[in-house]
């Protein structure tokens, strides 16, 4: 029986583990955090149907309840090398390479190490970490989840501005790619804000809104028609603080062709997705590191869960920005590829 390791207990890793376990393959699931699914449990509701993130996470976590799955939380994998790179001799009976995961040997490894949100400090002109009214979309999500949306003085905000594409589609920060889910997340969060604070104005500054998924366009329309969210095409060039702890933004409304200044209680930066530290380091170690530090699959069309390294599979947002739905599907595909390879 081949030994299988899955690195990362996110949606892709858990789904793959569940499918493999159901097919009587024992797997070991490594997770650096103390709990699995950290990138879901910090969310409130999920687009496009406003499903409760906790419920979705609970359903996913329930899949781990299988004797074939060994979950090892708080275990960070720092070493991932195949025998043909590391030069050790313990090849398995079939002659395929063996992978060294930390100090243990495995026949098959699934990399599902995921993403990390863009560090908004790197766009200093937007004032994150300098002005108290500037937050990232993750912090906003937390406020929504706790039902406690407040400005820097602890009062109910009268206006909230969302800014798209922070650290995505941005040549200056070196990330030319689109992070794919921030557009719809801003629409979702604006609706949540309006639900909790109907008197609060919500503005979304965008380059173009990419409402690609099922139900996304409808959400965008609902946001405008039912909730009165305002959408302004233009990027914010800089943010400044005001004496009363609010944020003043400078931007250009590119549809009107006019510069504008606006004062807002909160500025929410829709941070993009970058390859996580684990993804970056492990992909580099086993030589499948592609653009921007993401792991590179063998072929984006037909072999998207395989890598150039034999016995190493890749799934989820460690390859590129991916939604929860896509990650779960991708984990399932990876499990199928692994089963076929056995």
């Amino acid at each position, binding site marked *: 029986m081949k030994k299988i390791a899955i690195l990362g207990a996110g949606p892709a890793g858990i789904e793959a583990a569940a499918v493999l376990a159901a097919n009587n393959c024992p797997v070991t699931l490594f997770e650096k955090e103390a709990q699995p699914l950290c990138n879901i449990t910090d969310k409130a509701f999920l687009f496009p149907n406003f499903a409760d993130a906790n419920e979705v996470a609970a359903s996913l976590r329930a899949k781990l309840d299988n004797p074939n799955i060994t979950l090892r939380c708080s275990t960070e994998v720092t070493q991932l090398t195949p025998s043909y790179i590391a030069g050790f001799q313990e090849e398995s009976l079939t002659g395929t390479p063996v992978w060294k995961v930390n100090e243990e040997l495995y026949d098959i490894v699934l990399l599902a190490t995921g993403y990390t949100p863009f560090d908004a400090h790197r766009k*200093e*002109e937007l*004032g994150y970490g*300098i002005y108290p009214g500037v937050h990232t979309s993750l912090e906003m999500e937390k406020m929504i989840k706790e039902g406690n949306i407040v400005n820097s003085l602890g009062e109910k905000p009268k206006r909230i501005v969302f800014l798209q594409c922070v650290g995505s589609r941005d040549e200056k*920060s070196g990330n030319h790619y689109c992070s794919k889910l921030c557009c719809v997340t801003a629409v979702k969060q604006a609706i949540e804000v309006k639900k909790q604070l109907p008197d609060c104005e919500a503005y979304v500054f965008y380059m173009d809104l990419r409402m690609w998924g099922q139900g996304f366009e409808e959400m965008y329309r609902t946001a405008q028609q039912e909730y009165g969210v305002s959408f302004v095409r233009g990027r914010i060039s*800089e943010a*400044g603080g005001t004496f009363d702890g609010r944020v003043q933004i400078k931007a250009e409304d590119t549809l009107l062709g006019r510069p504008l200044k606006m004062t807002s209680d909160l500025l929410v930066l829709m941070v993009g997705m970058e390859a996580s530290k684990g993804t970056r380091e492990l992909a580099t170690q086993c030589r499948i590191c592609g653009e921007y530090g993401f792991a590179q699959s063998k072929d984006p069309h037909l072999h998207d869960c395989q890598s150039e390294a034999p016995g190493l599979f890749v799934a989820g947002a460690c390859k590129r920005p991916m939604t929860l739905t896509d990650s779960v599907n991708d984990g399932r595909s990876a499990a199928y590829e692994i089963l076929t390879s056995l």
Partner: protein
Amino acid sequence: MFSIFVIPFCLGVLALLVISVIKYYNWIKEFDRKQQTLIRKNILTWKFLPAIWEMFRECLLHWRITKHNALLGYMHRSLAFGWFLLIVVGFVQALVAYPNGHQFYVGIFFNYFEPHYPVSHSPALPFIANLMDALLLYVFSGLTLAIVKKFWSKPLGMKRTTRHNLTDRIAKAALWSIFPARLLAEGATSALYGNGGFLVVAMGRLMQAVGLTSTVLEYNLWTFYSLALGVFFTLMPFTRYMHIFTEVFLVYFRQLGLRDSDSKSGYTMFELSACSRCGICIDGCPINRELGVTDIQGVYLLQAIRNKDLRNRAESIANMCMVCGRCSAECPVGIDLEPVRRQVRTEYAKGIDHPEGFQYLKSLHHFNALGRVAYFGGCMSHLTPGITQAMEQIFQAAGQSYWFMDQEGSVCCGRPLLQQGLVRQAQALRDRNKSMLKKSNATMLVTSCPICYQSFTKDYRLDIPVMHHSQYIDMLLKNGKIKVERSDMRVTYHDPCELGRGCGVYDEPRHVVAATATLLPTQEEREKSLCCGFNLGNTSIDSEQQVLIRDAALRNLLEPNPDMIATACPMCKKAMTRANNTPVSDIAEIIANQLIEK
């Protein structure tokens, strides 16, 4: 004393003289009013003394090149100083031999005339003949190095050398053949008459041994020597060798206080021709080092301006430049390339330079200064608000009342426009800031951005002192106005181009860093510091190219493995923060974090 073969030489000298005089006359006529005033004011002062010293040091000894690379300096020195001495000693030789007078060319062709005409047998002559041979040998050593450099330039401290055009190459061939031709001609004479110093006699014996003793051969060799000289002198005013005389003038004018102005002037013409196209500006240029673009450096810019038919090329060359100043810092002739680039940009920016575009300036309200110090953050510091916030903390800690003059409704200092050649627009912004400062009654201006600092010190002519915040913080620390806690952080410091090479401020920011942290040296710092890649000077570069230049600067800064990179420019900070995981801080932020509350 005459022979027909001297005619090419004489014609060459005549052509050189006439063409040079016409050129210089025209250029001097083109001096603008300010330059003319400076010449009138300074021509009868002692300033010619340092000028003569600099001419000797740079035009003959090539001291700046020697500092760049000793072997390269030796090469240039042996050719320039060696040839100069050959001419001077040759003249003395003729004077000693013919005390009753002689034609001017006799010194050049001395060995030919000496056995044919009666000579005064001065005891000094054999010594001078040996001295002349030693000098010729000295020139030969330089020539050998020049040939080596053509094929293998690395030992002479140059990774890349200049690509020359056809006239330059013909002139170079003529120049390189002058000295071997001279030795052969003198050898042929010596083979017949046995005259000359140690080298020439040896050459003569060798020619005797292989049977080359004929008056026809001797005559033809002297003709070839004269032709080589004639061709070189005639071509000289049209090639890079014009720098030989022009540099002398440039040194003199510079010592009189002349500088480049906003548009092309007579002084610029002298600069264009004083460039020897040595190509030292190529190696250090970040656009060459990181992007592999090797046809936009100073040497090619000057060449393109000189060849007026290539004006479009000049524009694209002028635009593709970080304005980091590394080339000017290394130029052995001391040509200030930044204003020259700006002149070309101005020429091409005329179409968009409408002063009407700045009507909004009138509608801006200015604030009264509450304190004595005016603080100008600058546009770039508004994009790095950590810096302005730190400065406000420092002002408060020092108990200094201040007026943050561009906190609201900021007006740019004008320098980015000036760098792009938009002279009038820059002037409109400067006027606005100047009048605000005047009304504020501020007695000092502190700025956080080196671009603004350079602008306020060089373009504004304010009547109050201007300080970059690195100098201001250094002063506060020295006076004990603020106190900082030491940390065990190890820091490397990045010299911003505009602050370092632009304004010569290297020490103060280092003092400031060293006041609180351990400052680590880096490989390329101070005058040699690397551009961060995101300078506003270059508008044709794309962001991927900027990243390559920035990464090179980062490699240099991260090499000692610091805990933090310090810099003193918001733009450099932004450029580097985006890229790497090591924290990057402005020196003001470092100090603000370590302040000890009184």
